[in-house]
Every structure is written in structure tokens, then in C-alpha cells.
């Protein structure tokens, strides 16, 4: 449970760690949207900026590669599929499968965009405390009428807190079933039944205990509001982010025209 995964916050003191979570969320949305319109040049610019940010946050490049290995495999499949399905000038054929020049280009671009979006998200989750994420959700939902933003925020927080616990419990149930040769049972319905029913029971019991523990500490929706620390750094990051988005989108239009 203590291992790093793509949802884990890595404590640090970098500028990105200290950035107000509201600005950080807005910047992630902006960059992700700009990436959808970015061409190769824009993606390259974004890649350079993201690499620099990863370096400043002192998150290991190898750790990121290890975390994203299955995602990179998925991108490879996407790239090959695009290369084969997009019509255009044939470049070469392999066992009767024709790879087109346009297909390779589009496949590479789509894979690159998804990769950069993933790195952006990973940087966000690695430098943002879940509690801050909850505060940002509460702040963004506040102006929307009929949405209980504090309740939604605490639900987000509990989901992030208990997801690893539920996964651990699923492993425990699976181990307990396998310890009694449950893995020899080839009927998928029975296997699911033996896994899901005890797991659901554990989850509901844990949920019940959690409710009692929260009640015992006077939980209510009228809680102390989160405090955001905003300084000059936030404006600088926002300006730099906007410039980056323009730099990513602008070359794309040149290529189109």
C-alpha cells in the first residue's frame, strides 16, 4: 500500500509542489486542451517544459517510465492501429499489412499527445496533496447551485483514502480463496462470487466503522474552510502556462495553413 503508484503524492519543496492547487488544476486543464490541438512542434515544446518540471520536482524519470510501461504499450498499439487504418501514400508493407505515410504521422502524433497528457496528469498527482485536491474541488464547485460542495469534497477525499485499502482487501480475499485451492475452480461465475461477496462484506463493514469514527469526531458539513496561499508565483505560472499553450497551438495553425 505504501508503494508509489500514479495516484500517489510525492512530498517535495519544488515550485510546483508549492503552487496553489486552484491554479495548478486550471493549468492542467489548459495544457491538456492545448495538447489536443498541438502538432509535432507544439508537442516538442511541451515535452521540453514537462521534462524540466519533472527534473525540478526531483521525481525519477525511471520511476515514471516504470509506472507508465503498460500505458506506453497501449500507445504503441494505438500507433500501429492508426498506421494501418489511415488511408494515404503506402510507405511499406509487412506480411500484407500496408503502413501509410499519413497513418504513421497521425499515429505518432496521437500517441505523443496522449503520452504528454499522461505526464501532465502524473506531475499533477505527484505534486498535489489529496487534501489540496479536495479543497480545489470544493472551491470550484462552490458557485454551482444545488451542489453540496463540502459533501462532494469529503467524498473525493474518502475515495482517494480508501481506494488503496479496498485494493488491499481484494488481495487478501483473493489470497484467502487461493490458499484453499480456489484457483482450481475454473467456473468464472463461482470465482467471482467467492471473491466479490466477501469483499463487499468487508467494504460495507469498513464503511460502517468509518461512519461511526467520523460521527465520534463530530463530522458535519459545516467545517472549517480550506485556506489557499496565493502569491506572485501563481501569476507567473499562469502567464507561463498561457504562453506555453499558445506556443503549442500556434505552430499547428501554421502547419494547417
Amino acid at each position: 500500500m505504501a508503494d508509489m503508484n500514479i495516484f500517489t503524492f510525492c512530498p517535495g519543496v519544488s515550485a510546483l509542489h508549492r503552487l496553489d492547487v486552484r491554479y495548478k488544476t486550471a493549468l492542467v486543464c489548459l495544457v491538456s486542451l492545448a495538447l489536443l490541438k498541438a502538432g509535432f512542434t507544439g508537442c516538442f515544446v511541451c515535452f521540453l517544459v514537462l521534462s524540466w518540471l519533472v527534473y525540478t520536482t526531483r521525481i525519477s524519470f525511471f520511476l515514471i517510465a516504470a509506472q507508465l510501461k503498460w500505458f506506453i504499450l497501449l500507445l504503441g498499439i494505438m500507433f500501429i492501429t492508426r498506421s494501418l487504418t489511415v488511408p494515404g501514400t503506402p510507405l511499406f508493407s509487412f506480411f500484407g499489412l500496408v503502413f501509410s505515410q499519413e497513418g504513421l504521422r497521425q499515429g505518432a502524433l496521437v500517441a505523443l499527445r496522449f503520452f504528454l497528457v499522461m505526464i501532465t496528469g502524473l506531475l499533477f498527482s505527484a505534486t498535489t496533496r489529496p487534501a489540496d485536491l479536495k479543497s480545489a474541488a470544493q472551491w470550484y464547485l462552490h458557485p454551482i447551485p444545488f451542489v453540496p460542495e463540502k459533501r462532494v469534497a469529503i467524498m473525493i477525499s474518502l475515495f482517494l483514502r480508501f481506494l488503496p485499502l479496498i485494493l488491499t482487501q481484494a488481495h487478501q480475499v483473493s489470497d484467502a480463496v487461493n490458499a484453499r485451492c480456489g484457483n482450481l475452480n475454473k467456473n468464472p461465475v463461482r470465482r467471482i462470487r467467492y471473491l466479490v461477496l466477501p469483499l463487499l462484506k468487508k467494504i460495507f463493514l469498513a464503511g460502517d466503522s468509518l461512519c461511526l469514527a467520523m460521527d465520534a469526531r463530530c463530522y458535519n458539513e459545516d467545517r472549517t474552510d480550506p485556506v489557499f496561499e496565493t502569491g506572485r508565483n501563481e501569476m507567473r505560472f499562469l502567464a507561463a502556462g498561457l504562453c506555453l499553450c499558445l506556443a503549442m497551438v500556434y505552430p499547428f495553425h501554421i502547419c494547417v495553413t
Partner: protein
Amino acid sequence: MEHPILEIDHLTHCFPSGGGILDISFQVFPKEFILVAGPNGCGKTTLIRHLNGLLLPSSGQILLHGKPVTSDITNARKTVGMVFQDADTQIVGDTVYDEVAFGPENLKMPRSLIQKKVTQTLEQLDLFHLKDRNPATLSGGEKRRLTIAGILVMDPEIIVLDEPFANMDYPSSLSLITTIRALHAGGRTIIMATHDLEEVITCATRMLILDRQGCLARDGRPGDLLLDLAAHGIKQPCFSRMGYGAPPWQT
């Protein structure tokens, strides 16, 4: 004479499936260390969950400073802090700091006061160096201390612990006993539900024994009740069985 903090008056709680507690009455005075002992399923947890209104009685009542617990449930939960058996399912914070801040945030304390109280509490329980850690990565003993910190920060008069030594190794148990003794020495009233008295019987000033029917069988000084334990399905401490005195468990 000192006024009691809590008065439990003919408390009965019946579950639809059977079991529960039956006609229990006692009072809790300041600075007491009360052990609630009894075999599994005798109603220890049911009893202590009534003390801050988490469960409501089928009949009888609980008075906190002379007023029914239900008249101000927030005050009852602030005054009677409760530490549950399973630490993992009661920790809601993403970091040690956030976990301790959860209670004061619910009480809508100002942010500056929360920061001061959380820092003080973390230092008191020797957890300050772990304040940015994910609670899931703590040891069993640290998690238990964290759950105590989570209620201590709300400044309760009474701390109720439900089977605090369950699933804990020897060093963690030692550390926890030291913490509990320090809290008691600092003037807190402690109520602890347990079926294993070996670790704590020398710390307690009073012991309540529940029988299998959920009735209060005995109420007295721990030293006076040692020979009654086995008859009520509770393991007699080793030193008592071997005919020795009652040395502090830590030594």
C-alpha cells in the same frame, strides 16, 4: 465530594438479533482509569458506544455533567473521545497532519488555532516528525497513537479506548501503555474496554466486569477482583496466578 462526569443509569440496549447489555448503572469520576472487562460478545463495545451517543439506549439514560448525552450530542462527542479497535478504518486523513486536524475542522475552529493545537498534539504524542507521512505507511503502534492524537486534539475529558492492544506487537504495546499512562497522569479520565488485562491492570484504578448476559457483574478495585476474573471468562493475569504481587508491566 467530586461530581461525576458521566452517570450511567439503568442502561439497557437490546439488538434485534439478540444480545446487548442489561440494566447497567455506574458513575465515572474525574481522573479515574476504568477497565471494562469481559469475555468476547458480552457487550463491552456496545456499552462504551453509548457513552458519547454513538448508540442510543433501549431504556435507561446517560448523563454527562448532569445533562442527558442526547441534549448536546456534539459536546458529548467532544467531551468523550473514542478510539476504535481497527485503526485502519477510522483514519480519514491523507497525511498524519490532516488526520489530526479532522476533528478541529469539524468543530469549525479557526485555521490558526487548528494549526497550533495539531502541532502541540503531534509533539505530545511524538508524531510530529511523521506529520507529512501517509497514515497507511505507519506501524501498528504509530497508527494507534495517531488515532489517540485525533481525539486528543479535541481536548476530551474522557478518553475511551476499545481493545487498544488488538493486533499489536510487544514494542507497540509498550509504547501505547506509556502514552496512556502519561495521559492519565496528565489528568485525563481513561475508560478502556479489553478482554486481556495482562498489560493494563496495574495502571487501572477501577474495574468493571461484564458477564456473558451483558450485566454488570462486579465493580471494584482491580486488585480486589483478580480472583473473580476466571469465573467470568476472563484470563487472570500471570502474576496473580503465580501468586506474585502486581509489578508494573513495563518493567
